[in-house]
């Protein structure tokens, strides 16, 4: 019986490269081999960029040899969700409408990764245009969970989470609009962080909900998430929503003491609808944090239950506007033999967009339309204020809030895909953080009776990523959940 692969650690890989013990080429070859071997069973990737990655690795190795400074992630392979623009290869957003789209520019996060010397090896699978909760809405097939191939990896960053969980790459980038980093991280047993809104530039992230989207790290360890965040975070003039707030030394922050921190727990989050094993693992995690010296404080978030309704009006309204650009005129798929311009738009979008995307565009269009705007979109914006205020009040009393990430562990492929609303309810714990613009992390905290991973969510006030990372890191020093390797990661 072959041994499970080792848990990769980006920080260690970066050190080994720095001290000349492993080359970028060795790391890259290994990552490519594993991604290619795992692709048929997991479908984590839309494209694996073998040639480009090897060429870049050789370049980095040469630079090092020549004494030219290389960056903090030099020699470390990384995978990137395919809704983030790269100037090489394709950026498909897992959609037919962009199946052959070649971006003319790199996203800001990609520029930063390149400068840091990281090696991009693949663009990973997602729900089309980041709309979904399972990575079943991809035009290129679902991504399977490395813990059970009949189950979903979660979404929408399922490909990135699966690639990391399967130990093919030490870390990856995902994006989070309503939970799309944290949910797949939880279901795949890895760490996923949604930074505060405005912490990471959205320039080059194909927009889903412009007031909700953030790019963030997915890794096996909180330490690696901190390392990746320190590279991608920062102001970018090309994203007018990017905040000019100083970037903390996230690696140094890992060692901040947990002792004395106040952790808020709300009955609304641990109420009904939560799977028993998930509740037990969450409560055990909170007990562990108390052992570390944190103090649990009861809080109330009375508007939390309206989060899904609020989100599915705001995000769909924003999406209907953002996706209007996919019209067959400038790029992407265009329907054949259009009768006139209207026919060009309508048939291009009808044929090129998947059912969930169409559903959401229509919902958003309706919510913004004349006669319904006040009752739906404007109403949702007001409820958003109430949700924000709940968090502001809570953060007067506590430093962090702990909650489950998802009501269940990974469900079966096909189980929820026929009922859109059932799928939406998977976001129930993650969604509020996007509405409020706060930061949130999912950290592995246990397994259910079927051996499926469970995550604990920690939420913090805007720009308090340092606190999330320090608590998460110290939790990982005392627990082993993140070290377990899924059996589907084992390659002959």
């Amino acid at each position, binding site marked *: 019986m072959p041994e499970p692969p080792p848990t990769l650690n980006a920080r260690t890989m970066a050190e080994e490269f720095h001290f000349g013990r492993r080359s970028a080429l060795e790391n890259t070859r290994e990552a490519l081999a594993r991604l290619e071997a795992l692709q048929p069973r997991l479908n984590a990737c839309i494209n694996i960029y073998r040639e480009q990655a090897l060429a870049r690795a050789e370049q980095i190795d040469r630079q090092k040899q020549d004494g030219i400074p290389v960056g903090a992630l030099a020699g470390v392979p990384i995978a990137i969700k395919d809704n983030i623009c790269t100037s090489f290869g394709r950026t498909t957003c897992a959609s037919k409408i962009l199946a052959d789209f070649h971006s003319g520019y790199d996203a800001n996060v990609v520029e930063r990764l390149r400068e840091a010397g990281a090696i991009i090896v693949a663009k990973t699978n997602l729900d089309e245009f980041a709309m979904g909760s399972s990575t079943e809405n991809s035009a290129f097939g679902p991504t399977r969970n490395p813990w059970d191939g009949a189950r979903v990896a979660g979404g929408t960053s399922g490909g990135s989470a699966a690639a990391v969980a399967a130990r093919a790459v030490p870390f990856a980038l995902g994006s989070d609009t309503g939970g799309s980093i944290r949910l797949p991280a939880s279901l795949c047993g890895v760490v996923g962080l949604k930074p505060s809104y*405005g912490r990471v530039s959205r320039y080059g992230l194909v927009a889903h909900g412009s007031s909700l989207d953030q790019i963030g790290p997915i890794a096996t360890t909180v330490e690696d998430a901190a390392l990746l965040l320190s590279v991608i975070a920062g102001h970018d003039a090309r994203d007018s929503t990017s905040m000019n707030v100083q970037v903390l030394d996230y690696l140094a922050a890992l060692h901040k003491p947990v002792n004395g921190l106040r952790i808020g727990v709300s009955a609304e989050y641990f109420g009904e609808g939560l799977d028993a094993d998930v509740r037990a693992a969450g409560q055990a995690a909170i007990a562990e944090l108390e052992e570390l010296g944190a103090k649990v404080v009861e809080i109330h978030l009375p508007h939390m239950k309206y989060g899904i309704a609020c989100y599915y009006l705001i995000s769909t309204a924003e999406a209907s506007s953002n996706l209007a650009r996919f019209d067959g005129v400038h790029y992407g798929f265009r329907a054949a033999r259009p009768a006139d311009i209207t026919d060009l738009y309508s048939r291009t979008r009808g044929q090129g967009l998947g059912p969930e995307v169409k559903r959401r565009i229509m919902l958003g269009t309706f919510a913004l339309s004349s006669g319904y705007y006040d009752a739906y979109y404007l*109403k949702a914006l007001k409820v958003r204020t*109430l949700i924000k205020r709940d968090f502001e009040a809570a953060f007067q009393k506590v430093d962090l809030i702990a909650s489950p990430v998802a009501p269940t562990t990974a469900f079966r492929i096909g189980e929820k895909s026929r009922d859109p609303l059932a799928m939406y309810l998977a976001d129930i714990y993650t969604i509020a953080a996007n509405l409020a613009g706060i930061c949130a992390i999912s950290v592995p905290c246990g397994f259910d009776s079927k051996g499926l991973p469970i995550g604990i969510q920690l939420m913090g006030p805007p720009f308090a990523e340092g606190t999330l990372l320090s608590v998460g890191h110290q939790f990982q020093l005392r627990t082993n959940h993140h070290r377990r390797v899924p059996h589907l990661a084992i390659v002959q």
Partner: protein
Amino acid sequence: MPHLDEDTVRHVAHLARIAITDEEVRLYSQQLSKILDYVNQLNELDTSNVPPAEHPLAASDVFRADVVQPSWSSDVALKNAPDRHGDYFRVPKVLDQEDA
């Protein structure tokens, strides 16, 4: 509490410029009605004195200096063009359309 009837679905699909089949009209009418029923719970809340939150964080009027900066060449801008004609994207006639 409008049920999203099939006429409304067709109207919305037209606003969104998405061609949908009759089958899709039926399916979306059903699915979207169910979702709208769910989101109607927001009406339980009195928001008469609550301002709308268009942005998660406070930031406004983020401008840059009005200075010309380098941009893309036509080749880059047109590299994915489905139908390129010189430096143009070619599309069916737009003018003389009732409702383009």
